[in-house]
């Protein structure tokens, strides 16, 4: 090619910048459309949550709230932050550490009837470990009403 070295350098830099710009756009776009926000049951009760998009809720599985469907796979339970509660339905196999009275995080959407349809239920790592979102939900509920006693985890 009969291009001067300087021109070649410009072309290289130009291509490079264009590529990086494109990549940056792609990344930021993907980032924005795939962020999942987290809400506490209190926020759900106040209606602060978005309709028609997924989000996460966290708290404790309320004692005595787990009910299994006929098929053995559909499970209804209630997530509580000790102030407010959200009913949840999930179809599938629950993680090993999903138990009443233990911390849980669920991802999904809330329907018109206020039932949270979970696509994913997380409760992991170990017996004493509380998912950070669940712990945060309990903490903020506690801060809002100091009369409630925080359950020991």
């Amino acid at each position, binding site marked *: *090619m009969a*291009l001067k*070295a300087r021109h*070649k350098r410009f*072309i*290289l830099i130009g*291509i*490079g910048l264009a*590529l*990086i710009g494109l*990549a940056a756009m*792609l*990344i930021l776009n*993907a*980032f924005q*459309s*795939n*962020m*999942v*926000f*987290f809400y506490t049951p209190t926020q759900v009760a106040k209606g602060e949550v978005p309709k028609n998009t997924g989000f*996460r809720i966290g708290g404790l599985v309320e004692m005595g709230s787990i009910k*299994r469907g006929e*098929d*053995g*796979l559909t499970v209804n339970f209630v997530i509580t932050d000790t102030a407010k509660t959200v009913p949840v339905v999930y179809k*599938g*196999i*629950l993680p*090993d*550490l999903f138990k009443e009275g233990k911390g849980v995080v669920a991802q999904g959407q809330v329907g018109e009837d206020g039932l949270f349809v979970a696509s994913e239920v997380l409760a992991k*790592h*170990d*017996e004493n*470990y509380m998912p*950070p*979102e669940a*712990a*945060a939900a309990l903490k903020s509920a506690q801060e809002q009403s100091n009369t409630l006693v925080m359950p020991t985890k």
Partner: protein
Amino acid sequence: MIPEIGHFSLILALLVSLVLGSFPIIGAARGNTVWMGLAKPLASVQFILIAFAFLCLVYAFAYMDYSVLYVANNSNSKLPLQFRIAAVWGGHEGSLLLWALILSIWTLAVSLFSKHIPDDMRARILGVMGLVSVGFLLFMLMVSNPFERLIPAALDGRDLNPLLQDPGMIFHPPMLYMGYVGFSVAFAFSIAALLGGQLDAAWARWSRPWTILAWIFLTVGIMAGSNWAYYELGWGGWWFWDAVENASFMPWLVGTALIHSLAVTEKRGSFKAWTVLLAICAFSLSLLGTFLVRSGVLTSVHAFATDPRRGIFILAFLVVVIGGSLLLFAWRASTVGRGGKFDVVSRESFLLANNVLLAVAALSVLLGTLYPLFLDALNLGKISVGPPYFDAVFAPLMAPAIFLMGIGPIARWKEAALPELAMRLRWAFGISIATAVILPLMLGNFTPMIGFGLFLAFWVFATSAELVYQRLGKSDLPLMGRIKANSRSWWGMVIAHLGIAVFVLGVTIVKGFESEIAVKMLPGDVAHLAGYDFTFDGVMDTHGPNYEVSRGQIHVTKNGVLRTILEPEKRLYTVTNMPMTEAGISPHIIHDLYASLGEPLEGGAWSVRIYHKPMVEWIWFGCLMMAFGGFLALADKRYRLKKRAPSKEAKSSKEATI
């Protein structure tokens, strides 16, 4: 008494590393050969002291000394011996000690296999590694001492997290750490080059094998972790874009860019400053990864609040290492010299594009991993960025990188001609397009993503075949002679690239054709998936060394013929009262049949998950091929330890810059 001896040994090691991190570097600056000469013996002493401390901790674990806090927190008398020893790196303090031990091993290795490196360079390299060691030893001694006593002693330990009680725990963390810490060698080489203002082809040739070795360990470590997650978590997944996984993947991406950039620096003398920057980044990300995983930040950023000294130390250490080396880079990068010129279309350009793509990919993972932590730390709300983000970003970034991977090795250095490249690659292109269309149609499921993935995999297969054909076809030697006529590092490259293709093929097929069902099964029930009949024979209760186990049996038949028997388990670890799923897998080159038990339901029924995973094993086999390619490159003749005449070095480096 033994823990105190270990503790004392660590203190001595800190003193030794302080001397190692100062005198040889100052000696190199002043030309003091005695001070420079200190580096080698100090590296050995440091290794002996840290290894001794490590053995003391192993002893405390093996002999169940629950008066040591760390042992009491991470072990239990019922834990089998191999896991008691692996439990040494099961928690924060012990894994830092393992880190320091591995750093001292690498330091020792560099001091032993560096006869051909000039004295001042060697002194600087070992000195920099000594400084890193100072940081880790200080951290351990000040805020996370594994030998801290628990008074009064516990009667028994709190047990190792059952998730970690697996053979994977014995190999995966040490392998991963060998990789992480191995990048400290490349880092030290780069800092030494910046300090000495000397960076030539010889420098690249010396640092290349170390970098490749670290990269091999990291590759195998990540692969082992992925495989472990696959059978341990019971979800049939092999990669979750979990922050812990990302922490190991970022250094791998940058390390992969680094070994390619080093190749250019050695062969052509270009990309010098970029190579140095990549080495700094690879090690910085390794440090970040270590701390992210081990400091508890990931489970909650507020974990720092429970022990603020730890958090502040980690932040300060990261700032000093990363900030300091980047400052040094900004100040001294101009001294390492400029590289050779190259055309817009040339192998250098292709490698540059590969480097940029890998670096951007690493950045995108960094963003997805750290941004939620930042928001949370600043109390701006909690968000999570899951697999959809990484999938959306990764495919478009890696696709051009893999496409260029087919062209790069065929293009000439310095100046290549597009028409000639197009001529040489037209068959490869045609074959891979045809395969990408026909194969999914034959398999009965065509989606753009499957077609695209297959195209990329076969593109690499076909271009590699073209490359090998061109190299081997032009000679009339016997076949073995022709194979040997090409260097081992060239073969290493070909095999590593084929490994990527095997990996991509596995990912594409498993993503495109996998199937799963979750069912409630009574003994005798049959589930159907992918043409197989899975009959649930029931569950038998038995027990392991420290757990109760319900072992299910599922026999798998196809058209009435018995194919395999799966034995998924549900374990209950009695000490921590934690249930654990152990998948029953029948691995096969064509497909894995995979079953895991959910939970017991009424009347002897169980919820059961069954997966059909076509070609999933190819994913890990591809990783092993990459690692094997790395080994071949290491075995190359030009890395054999020989003292080369200095005049020849100077000449070759001069040639490289022309």
